[in-house]
Structures are given as C-alpha cells and as structure tokens.
C-alpha cells in the first residue's frame, strides 16, 4: 500500500532544545492514523512541519510521493488544537476567505460551503458574526473550514476538545465518512478511547523520539501478555487453586459481574488457552473467560514510563 505521507529522519531544533530527533513516520493511504504522545513530546512540532508552518532542520517529508512543497497546502486540511476564527467577520465571508487562501476559486468555495451548511443545518448562520455564535457552533464552522477544500490528508489536533458529546459524535461520523471516501486522517490526541475506536494505525512519540509505530492490531499483539481474565463459581476452591498453580501464575483481580464468583488473572506461560479452560471446567462453572488485551492507554503509559 502506498503512503499518503512519509516523514524521513526529520529533525527540528529550537536553539539548544531538540523538539524532533530524527523522526520517521509512514501514514498509509486511506488510513486513520493516531499520533500519540504526552504533552511536549513533539507532536505539534511535527504537525507544523507537515503543514509547512515551520521548516525542518533536517530530513524530508513526502506527500503522496512528492517532496513537500508550497502547493501542497491545498491538499492538507489542518485543524490545530488552539483554534479560532475572526470574531468580527461574518461566518460566510470568513469561510470563503479561508477557502480561497487554500487555493479554491470563489465559485467552488461557495458551492462547497452551501453543501456543508445544509448538511449541518446551519444556513442561517451565513451572515452572523463568530462572536454571536456559541463555542460549539464556532467549532462546527471550524470543522467545515478544515474539510471544505476536500483535502487528501486531514490533520486534526485534539479534534474533539470543546465539543459536547452530541456534536463530537457528529464530527466523528463526518470524519469516518470522509475516510471512507478516501481521505487519510492523522489524529493527534490524548483521548485514548477515540484512538481505540477510530484509528487503524498509531505512532507514539515521546521526548522528541518515535517509540512505536504500526497497525493498531500489531501494536496490541506485540504488547499482549498472554493473560486471561477468568471468573468461576467453584465448590472446591482449594483443589482448583492447586491445579492452577501447578501450571500457571495467578493473581487476584476484579471485574464487573453479576455473580459472586472467584475472579482471577491467569498468565498462560506458553500453554494453550484450552488447557486452562479444561482445568476450569473440571472444577466448577465458568462465568467469564477473556483474553486480557492491552489497551492503548496501558501501552501508552507503559512505554512512556519505561523510558
């Protein structure tokens, strides 16, 4: 699969401070790519380089196979974390202006705007000033401005901050729809649940270095611990425990359930899950049997605190 964006050994320094230390990334065409990292890791620096807001001190960036150059701004839609609009400018004029800055013609911009305004049912806002709108309403306008010129690559920095759940969902659906139509999306966020839900690929940046990159599933696989969560109603707990400790490492755990059962976390140590299941079924009623999949949150915290 070809990649929409390729970042090769990019270095960025501010004075003595290194914000990006030879970072390389590959964002596959048509993917939703999660760019993760704690505050100050270098995410924003990287995003600004992709948007050509700042220039890298070393390395190269390729968009759709071409070396990044000024005309590429019209293929990128960028919604920064700190966002805003001209408060005293009318919504319609403002959208037209920003679209034209992205290289759209006046007529095209108007046509596209009409489509989006109808879609979001905000036609009546055209002549309103931003300062007359609520923050959530302004965010909708902001989103339209970002996607209006039909970019190949959407870069969204904390896209859901500032949205109420209803609007956040609306925006999420729009992003997924755009993605289905072929738009590649880069997400930079702290909200791990939206990463789990939406991203196919992730990269983790920490202290100016890229630590992890890959398909979400592959990353999870590589971090799997081969542990299972088990719930069992047993009449002979001693016997059960004896059988289990012969083969596996056990740990008391807790999860939500309706029964008052014995809750264990079992480390398989290379055995097949069926071996565990056999022992369990011989000793009681199994109510819960689930592989413990590491969440992105766990991987994030684990990786970041290791380094």
């Amino acid at each position, binding site marked *: 699969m070809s990649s929409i964006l390729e970042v090769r050994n990019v270095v960025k320094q501010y004075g003595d401070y290194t914000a990006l230390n030879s970072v390389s990334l590959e964002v596959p065409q048509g993917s939703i790519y999660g760019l993760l990292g704690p505050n100050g890791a270098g995410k924003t620096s990287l995003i600004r380089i992709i948007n*050509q*807001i700042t220039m890298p001190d070393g390395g190269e960036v390729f968009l759709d196979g071409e070396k990044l150059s000024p005309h590429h701004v019209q293929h990128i839609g*960028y*919604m*920064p974390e*700190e966002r*805003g*609009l001209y408060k005293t400018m009318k919504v319609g004029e403002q959208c037209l202006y920003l679209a034209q800055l992205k290289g759209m013609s006046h007529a095209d911009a108007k046509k596209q705007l009409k489509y989006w305004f109808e879609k979001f049912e905000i036609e009546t806002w055209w002549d309103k000033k931003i300062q007359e709108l609520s923050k959530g309403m302004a965010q909708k306008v902001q989103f339209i401005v970002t996607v209006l010129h039909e970019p190949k690559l959407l870069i969204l920095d904390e896209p859901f901050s500032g949205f109420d759940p209803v609007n956040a969902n609306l925006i999420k659906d729009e992003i997924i729809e755009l993605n289905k139509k072929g738009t590649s999306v880069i997400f930079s966020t702290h909200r791990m649940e939206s990463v789990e839900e939406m991203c196919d690929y992730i990269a983790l940046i920490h202290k100016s270095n890229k630590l992890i990159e890959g398909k979400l599933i592959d990353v999870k696989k590589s971090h799997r611990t081969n542990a299972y969560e088990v719930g069992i109603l047993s009449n002979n707990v001693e016997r059960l425990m004896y059988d289990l400790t012969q083969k596996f490492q056990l740990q008391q755990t807790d999860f939500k359930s309706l029964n008052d059962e014995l809750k264990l976390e079992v480390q398989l140590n290379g055995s097949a899950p069926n071996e565990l299941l056999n022992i369990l079924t011989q000793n009681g009623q199994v109510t819960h049997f689930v592989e413990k999949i590491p969440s992105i949150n766990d991987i994030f915290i684990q990786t970041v605190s290791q380094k």
Partner: protein
Amino acid sequence: MGILALIIKREFIAKVRNKSFIVMTFLSPLLIVGMSFLIGYLANMNAGEVKKIAIHDETGTFKKDFKNSKETTYTDLSALPFKAAKDTASKSYEGLIYIPKVANPKELATKVEYISDDSPSMEFIMEMEDVINHQLTQNNLKALGFDSVKIDSAQVKSDIHLSKFSGENSLKGLNEIKIGIGSAFGYLIMMFIIIYGNFVMRSVIEEKTNRIIEIIISSVKPYQLMMGKIIGNSLAGILQFAIWAIVGVVLLVGVSSFFGVQAGAASSVDPEMINAAKQELGGTIQMYLHEIWNLPIGTLITCFIIYFIGGYFLYSSLYAAIGAAVDSETDSQQFLLPIIMPLMLGVYVGFFTVMDDPHGTVATVFSMIPFTSPIVMLMRIPFGVPLWQIVLSIVLLFGTFFGVVWFASKIYRVGILMYGKKPTWKEMYKWLKY
C-alpha cells in the same frame, strides 16, 4: 486572485468597515475645525476680562505712561502710603507696580517691582519694561541735552517690501507658511505612522489571541500575511487621506474663488464700505493663497506619498513584529518606546532646526536618516531641496525598509506561534536565528 491580494482585500475591508474608521474619517476634520473655533473662542473670552493693576509711583513720572487698554486698566495709588497701597492692591487688584524714588536712572531701572500673587504673562512684563525703558531713556536723553520731541520725530520705522526677481510681490509671512505646511505634513506622517502602525500591531495581536493565526499560516507564508496586513492597512489609510485631501482641496478652491470672484460682487447694505473692506482683506488672503499655490505643491504631494509609504512600511513592519512577539497590547509598551522615540525626535529636531536653517547640517542629516527622513525631509521641501538629496534620502529609506522588513518578518514568523511568555529583547534576537 493571488493570495497576497486576498489578504490585502480582507485587511482593507475589515479596516474600512470598522465603525471607528468611518467615524474617524468624517469626524476628525470636523473635530479639527471645531477645536480651532473653540481655541479662538476661548482666547477671545480670555481677552474680554479686564485686569486691574494698581500703581504706586513715588517718582510721579511713570504713572501717566501706563495707558489703559482693552485688557488692563491702571489705577494710581501713589497718594496712599506704600504699605496702605500694597494692602489695597492685594485685596482688590491683580497686582501692584511699585516704582521707588531713586535718583540714579540706572539704579532705578533695577529697582522697579511688580507685586502679585499670580505670575504675570511674559507679554505683560515686557509691556511694563517697555514703559519704564522708554521713560528712563527719555530722561537720560533730556539729561544729556537732547530734545526728546525731535528725537521722537527723527525715529523711523521701516517696512521692507518683498518681491521676487520675476516682479511678483511676496509676503512676509511666507516662511511661517512654509514651516506651517512642512510641519503639517511631517506631523501627519508621524500621526499616521503611529495610528496605522498601531492598527497593524493590533490586527496581528488579534489574530494571535483569536488563535486563527495557525490556520492562516498553514495556508499562506507568514511573510505574505504580514505584508498583506501592512499593505491592506496602508490602503485604508490612503483612502482616509484621499477623502481628507479632496475635502481640503474643495475647501481651498472654494475659499479662493470666494475671495477672488465674490469680493467684487455688491452686497445690498452699504456696498462700498463692505466692498472696500472685503477687497482689502480679500487682497491679503488672495496673496497668501497665491503663495500657497506657488509652493512646489507637485513635489510636495509626490514626496508626501513616497515618504508616507516608505516611512509607514518601515515602521509598521516593526509594529507587526512587536505585535507578533507579545500576547496582548499591554505587553507591547516596552517595545514601542524605541519606535516612538525616533518619530518624536524627527518632529522636534525637524521643527526646530528646519525653522532655524532649512538647509543646515542637522536638518540635512536628519532628512537623510531613514527613521526620521519622512518627517524632516517633508518639512524641508517647501523651502526647496536639491533633487539629489531627495533621491538619496528616498533610496536610503527604501533600502532600510527592505532590511527592516526582512528582520521583522523573522521575528513575526516565530512570534506568532509563541504563546504565554513575555519575550525579552534577547529572546527576540534568538528568534532571528531560528
């Protein structure tokens, strides 16, 4: 439409649509006219008050020389003893002129006192001194045996008639007019740089606090945005100028034609007297107007536009850099001082040295330095400046302008993305190298 043109258009429209711009454009000429009327009125009102001054003249020879006028009336209290006169004066008079009895005129000249709780105006002191001087000089002359009446009649007051080689009559007040016009243009440029520079700065800060800046510069180069802002705002300024200039020219032409053509037209009441008065007044005003039209108006206006653009661009790019470096207008103060200083210097140095000697070294040098030349050179132009000096000064101005824009855009580029800290000069210097 090009990106730069788009930005210019937006900045221009945003500025021109602003209510304060519209109000300022139409209100400030009214305000200026209103102010001058108010000042005239206040000055007249002041003149209406009569100052009461008491005189205690022990010699008895001076009091008759203090003649009552519209502004002052003199009352002779010489009959009272000095102490009583002083008490009376302190109660019901503005002040007391005390002339002691001293035989030696030289000594007497230094012994005269004016006693008052209010400090008198320079004008009034000079008036008193004139009276004393005149009387004492007369006395001296008399003592030396000269006939004071003959001397008076022998005194001549000259009135030099000014004309040009072409035979035209000139006016004496012309230099004042030239200074007035030059300074007016100089002041205008300074005011515009400060006002419009501030507009540019505010517009930069606005984009920064609105947080729209990052969206904009993900589409355009910071340099384009900065130049678009500067040009857009300057166009709004030029529009404002144009409106004022048109109003001004209409007024000037109107006044010229009123005195030139209308003065002869008869008016119903006592036509001859009014005509005579009008013609005399009209004649003087006509001559002044004639002189104004005779100034190098073409050069003046061309240079005004060139220097306005050069000076404005030079300073407003600095304003833009400052706007980018700070988070709010209140933080900008410490950086603004070094900008306003050369402007003030230009106006004051220009005003005093040009008035003194329009082509002296100081005036010439300051009309070359790019940071003061827009002001000082314009003050000199009504007096006639060699072309090479104007050209050199403009070349220097625009050369510096490009250097400063480069420097400012570097700071601008980094500054617009910096939030939450108040930069120092040292930090801004570091930004140049990013």
